[in-house]
């Protein structure tokens, strides 16, 4: 009896809660160290990015409207989903050239980071809010709100947990995310969409575009419906061109050189807007 033919996975994008191919039809190939083809994955185009912006704008409405408690539930659910599929993710990372223990560690760190940020969704509001003791008959308070649609560009040397960090810190604050790049583990990034998709995350709240971040940087920087850009491990020249383009619509920008070893609420705060509300106190 002949060996059963393996059903191979097509690695697709994750946009608006669906798994489309790149509209350009272009793919990139991931090869192992010996140059052997591992898999092909989508090379996202500017048009894919623009589609993702539309999806994210719709996703933002639902994600912002979700209670912080529900957002925490969904992030935790994503951790559960990833835990359940950890073997698949470890295997995929190995396919992409990582050693087994490093791969396992990366997946575990990803899961733990999801759990970490799941816990912050209903706490950042308290951590960064204030009741302001103003010197007049007014009640005045300041609360954080999400910045909006944020593009997260993940550099070529950043692993799975770095991509998860980028997505989670933005989602935890209530932002909608367009995760771009992840050239070090594009297959895992693509599979990550399946994890989120089975976690009740509203469609469009997170969009994943595999490909070359530099390709998308210009669009991410200049697209006026993008409110912020997070860069992890980007080339300084890419960062600079992003910043220049972003000035056209005064985007919020945050760049870190490499994937942080631990999560932080201050990382969430980079993409929170503080709203101060006043009301008179009287009868």
């Amino acid at each position: 009896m002949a060996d059963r033919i393996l059903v191979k996975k097509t690695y697709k994008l994750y946009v608006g809660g669906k798994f489309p191919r790149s509209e350009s039809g272009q793919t990139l190939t991931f090869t192992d160290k010996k140059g052997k083809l591992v898999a092909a994955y989508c090379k996202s185009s500017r048009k894919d990015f623009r589609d993702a912006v539309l999806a994210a704008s719709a996703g933002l409405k639902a994600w912002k409207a979700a209670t912080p408690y529900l957002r925490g539930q969904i992030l935790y659910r994503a951790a559960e989903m990833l835990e359940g599929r950890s073997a698949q993710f470890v295997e995929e990372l190995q396919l992409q050239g990582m050693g087994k223990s490093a791969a396992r560690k990366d997946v575990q760190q990803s899961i733990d980071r999801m759990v970490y940020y799941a816990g912050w969704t209903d706490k950042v509001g308290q951590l960064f809010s204030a009741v302001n003791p103003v010197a007049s008959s007014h009640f005045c308070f300041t609360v954080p709100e999400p910045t909006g649609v944020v593009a997260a560009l993940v550099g070529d040397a950043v692993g799975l947990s770095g991509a998860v960090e980028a997505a989670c810190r933005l989602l935890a604050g209530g932002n909608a995310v367009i995760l771009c790049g992840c050239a070090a583990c594009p297959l895992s990034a693509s599979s990550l969409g399946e994890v989120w998709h089975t976690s009740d995350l509203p469609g469009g709240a997170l969009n994943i575009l595999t490909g070359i971040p530099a390709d998308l940087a210009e669009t991410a920087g200049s697209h006026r419906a993008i409110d912020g850009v997070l860069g992890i491990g980007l080339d300084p020249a890419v960062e600079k061109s992003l910043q220049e383009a972003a000035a056209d619509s005064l985007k919020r920008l945050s760049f870190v050189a490499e994937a942080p070893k631990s999560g932080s609420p201050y990382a969430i705060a980079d993409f929170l807007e503080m709203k101060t509300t006043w009301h008179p106190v009287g009868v």
Partner: protein
Amino acid sequence: MSENPFINEPYAPAPESTKVAIKDVYGLFIENDFVPAEDGSTRETFNPANGKLISRVAEAGEADVDKAVQVARKAYDKTWSRMAPAERGKYLYRLARLIQERSRELAVLESMDGGKPIRESRDVDIPLVAAHFFYYAGWADKLDYAFPNRTWRPHGVAGQIIPWNFPLLMAAWKLAPALACGNTVVLKPAEFTPLTALYLAELVQEAEFPPGVINILTGGSTAGRAIVGHDAVNKIAFTGSTEVGKLIQRSLAGTGKPYTLELGGKAAHIIFEDAAIDQAVEGIVNGIFFNQGHVCCAGSRLLVQEGIADELMRKLEYRIQTLIVGDPLDKNTDIGAINNQPQCEKIQEFLKEAKEEGLELVDGGQDLPEQGFWCRPTIVKNAPQSSRIVREEVFGPVLAVQTFRNPDEAIEKANNTRYGLSGGVWTDKGSKIFKVTNAVQAGVLWANTFNKFDPTAPFGGYKESGMGREGGLHGLVPYVRLGD
């Protein structure tokens, strides 16, 4: 009784009597000394209410900026960063007290140089200036409590550029948190309104600040560009137009230099039919005519629910006739002079265009003085969303009025702008307040009030109105570099 002068013409001129000593020429304030610009340039500063020359101030160039930045760096390294935080706080307290002592002189000077009514400079600007220094003075030795679980350190030299609409208040908003966090400062006041900042410099001398901690460079865009572009400036804080804010963000690309930007606005002021209408009218008046409308967070777009539009407009039109336009130094003046000629021309341009568009304009009908720059409180009725007067910042006493039918429409119109600095909501219903203030994308929301400011209350914009917050605990964040 009709011959009774109180009934006919109650308010005779009532000029503020306090005199301020103003020098003929001011130098740049560097290392606690007033020095001429390297190239000897000066610029004249005028009283916008009568066009008369008040004084001449040195015009800083690149060399002066470089000198001030070096001095500020030296002061940072040698004294300010090494000083016990509590001692830094005491200098700020001292300055706050001096401001309170000289508050009337400062108010008069502010009104002379900038055209704002003495009632506002005396009752709003200057008290808030002192309060701001007082508030941040107290933070100087308590910063460990401001950033839980993080280490922090000052940036070093902060370069700060401020506008002409609240000259001294904006200086206070910039200086107080920067200094409390241990930075030294190079501050550039606006070219039209340098005098109160220079008076403040004299108070800095009097408070015996260590030389170089506070440097104040008068000048224009050359100096501004030089500050933004200087390698040894470690942080930029800018308040001004969105246009310039974008240039600054672009020019800082790749430098890693942190920046805060407080920019323009086009706030929606939403009046629901269940609002306290008479107080709403006051809120609208305060929202758009405060400081001649030269307020980035001015409530310049009035959105009125249709059911009360006629009643509200009648009251508003009646009310604006009682506003007194004239001499900023007169205690009865409600609306002073337009700050400067270019701004006055810009406002007139907007009004001309609105007329050409066929929009109905109503103003308060006041007689205007012959000299100086003036604009009557003006309402543009039934302005379409597509009109420039609805979409762009006029920065003058001009209110664009639109109506809406239900809350969703109000919210949609309120958010239909690239700006996001402030907003106002009037309704007697608590749950509606929270729904609407949550939905309006802006950094400051006033519900059943408008244009309230306090040093403890964070202020700043969403979207193209800028980034970062000034005031309160949140106002400290931009002035420290946080570590793990």
